[in-house]
């Protein structure tokens, strides 16, 4: 189990001679990834969700807050002692093209981490070969075909499966999937998604799914928790199905309203919410971060930042929470 509390991260943007401008990417994010569970973060690009994934995977540092991995707070460890913990959390990159070394065959790509594993557990090279085949079979590709090949000889879907197999070589507890299917052909996408879903059940790995595509989030983590993140802050969270069907924060509603409607199959939701302005990072930070774009804004919203409060199952950071039905409804039902 992994618990993160109060994670903040600020990037320094190189400014003029008078000094650098601080750009907050995360403003105190808390969440828990239970064993075998699914946690989803959704938001627009630049909302900090990618940074969050990289921090959880140990590829980026954070300014304050703490990450507790299986009971060990990372803040108590020196940097170089954290690696074995973060190795249990593997990031699946968005781009399967750059995630595999073009100069190495799939066999070489898998052999390196497996050799490390074999050394740790005192196994031999026969085990490595067997394990490589086992893992490739697990992710649904033919080891005999794939092993001697270079990444460029494989399709996008296959490449992403190889990336997943490579992550599994170190027996991780959590897979962080950051927009992991957005660059894969539409007809192959669902295959990779159902693989991730399958791995949750078969290997009991948890999935931290980071995306802007809420429907795929529902497909993988329909039974898990959903966090809606906006400009580095969680504005709404709760069980995935209940947030999707009954969002209370206007930003969540705007995100869900923006999903294209399959006309002919679906009807648009009756209360669709459209933001009044486009995302602008330079908007004031004093009140609710969404106030400038919110169609339901009041004076209160601009005074102070609303806190994330729970109403039982769902939590939201809004002064005027109201359930709206915004997602498309089945037309034929």
């Amino acid at each position: 189990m992994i618990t993160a509390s109060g994670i903040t991260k600020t990037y320094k943007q190189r400014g003029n001679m008078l000094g650098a401008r601080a750009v907050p990417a995360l403003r105190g994010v808390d969440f828990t990834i239970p064993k075998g569970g699914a946690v989803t973060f959704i938001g627009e690009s630049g909302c900090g969700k990618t940074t969050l994934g990289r921090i959880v995977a140990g590829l980026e540092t954070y300014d304050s807050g703490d990450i507790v991995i299986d009971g060990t707070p990372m803040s108590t460890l020196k940097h170089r002692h954290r690696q074995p913990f973060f190795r249990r959390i593997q990031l699946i990159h968005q781009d399967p093209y750059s995630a595999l070394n073009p100069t190495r065959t799939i066999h070489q790509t898998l052999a390196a981490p497996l050799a490390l594993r074999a050394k740790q557990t005192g196994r031999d090279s026969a085990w490595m070969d067997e394990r490589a085949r086992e893992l490739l079979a697990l992710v649904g590709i033919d080891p005999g075909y794939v092993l001697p090949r270079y990444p460029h000889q494989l399709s996008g879907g296959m490449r992403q499966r190889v990336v997943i197999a490579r992550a599994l070589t170190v027996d991780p507890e959590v897979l962080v999937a950051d927009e992991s299917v957005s660059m894969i052909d539409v007809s192959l996408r669902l295959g990779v998604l159902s693989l991730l879903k399958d791995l949750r059940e078969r290997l009991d790995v948890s999935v931290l799914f980071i995306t802007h595509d809420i429907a795929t989030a529902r497909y993988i983590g329909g039974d898990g928790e959903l966090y809606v993140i906006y400009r580095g802050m969680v504005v709404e969270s709760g069980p995935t199905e209940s947030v999707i069907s009954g969002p209370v924060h206007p930003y969540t509603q705007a995100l869900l309203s923006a999903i294209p409607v399959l006309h002919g199959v679906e009807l648009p939701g009756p209360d669709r919410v459209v933001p009044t302005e486009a995302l602008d990072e330079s908007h004031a930070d004093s009140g609710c971060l969404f106030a400038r774009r919110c169609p339901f804004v009041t004076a209160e919203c601009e005074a102070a930042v609303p806190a994330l409060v729970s109403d039982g199952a769902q939590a939201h950071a809004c002064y005027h929470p109201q359930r709206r039905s915004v997602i498309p409804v089945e037309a034929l039902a």
Partner: protein
Amino acid sequence: MTRTSAPGVRVDDLTVVYKTPAGELPALGGVSLSLAPGTITGIVGESGSGKSTLALSLLNAVQSPGRIKNGTVEIDGLGNIVELKGEDLRKARGRQVGYVFQAAQNSLNPLKTVGKQLLDLGRSHDFDDLPALLKDARSLLGRMGLDGGRVLDSYQHELSGGMRQRVGIMLALVLNAHLVVLDEPTTALDMITQAAILRIVREVHHERGLTTLIVTHDMGVAAEVTDSLAVMYGGRVVEHGPTTEVLGAPRHPYTKGLIRAIPRLSGDIDGATALPGRPPTLGTIPLQGCVFRERCPMRIAVCDTVDPVPVTRDARTVACHAVGRLATPVVPKEYA
């Protein structure tokens, strides 16, 4: 000869081949498709389906090593664009056919302001009244919810992805083209920005009386804005018809599979099922028989040898042996 009304477009038996070490391979294999005046048509397909090649053909802009081998593209008021050359072709691009390129976000010149690029565009098309052009551009940008003056004075890096996409649309429309082609207009944009751009496309389409073609890999995008939808696979249009009908009652097994593979926000999560196999690339498109047969659940013997002819029935075109069998006998093209 600038038109003020929406032109119709008829693509007939268009074949585009790419020269490779393995010989000339067809990216488009005899595609026929018509765009009714004043409608928004969507082309959906995966990578390698030939959708971008088809879009480029409307400009007669297929790049080497590709070439148009056969077929015609008739555009009202312009004639067969395949036969246009040199200056005539250059003038037609922009004036009659506006094109918003894939990744329009990155197709602006980083060293020049948007306004400068607009003036360059005007001059290269011999516009005398440049102030009027600027005024048009400002009002178009204003229409799309941007501060026109500020945007024209900006460099590419000062604009967000959604703003650049709008600038791309403005540049395609400002010369008063009435046929507009948008290639993947919303890739790499966020959901909310995507929704805004699609809304703008639809509104501007109606206000200016355009014929619009949208090329996308995203069924949702096509569903949201188009009136008519063509599904492409392996260099063929396998299904074409009114959007709501194609989505609501797909006939071609590929369209059916594609729609079933889209995860949805409501209903049974496990209702989505993956399509087996993978899309063909230029080199693996079968030269004989149906291009989809390897992945098809309705495959029959004739699929291996005969490329199905598109059959049109009640405004819907489907190219599939099995579908033809079930409903009516295979109708040769001449009778369609």
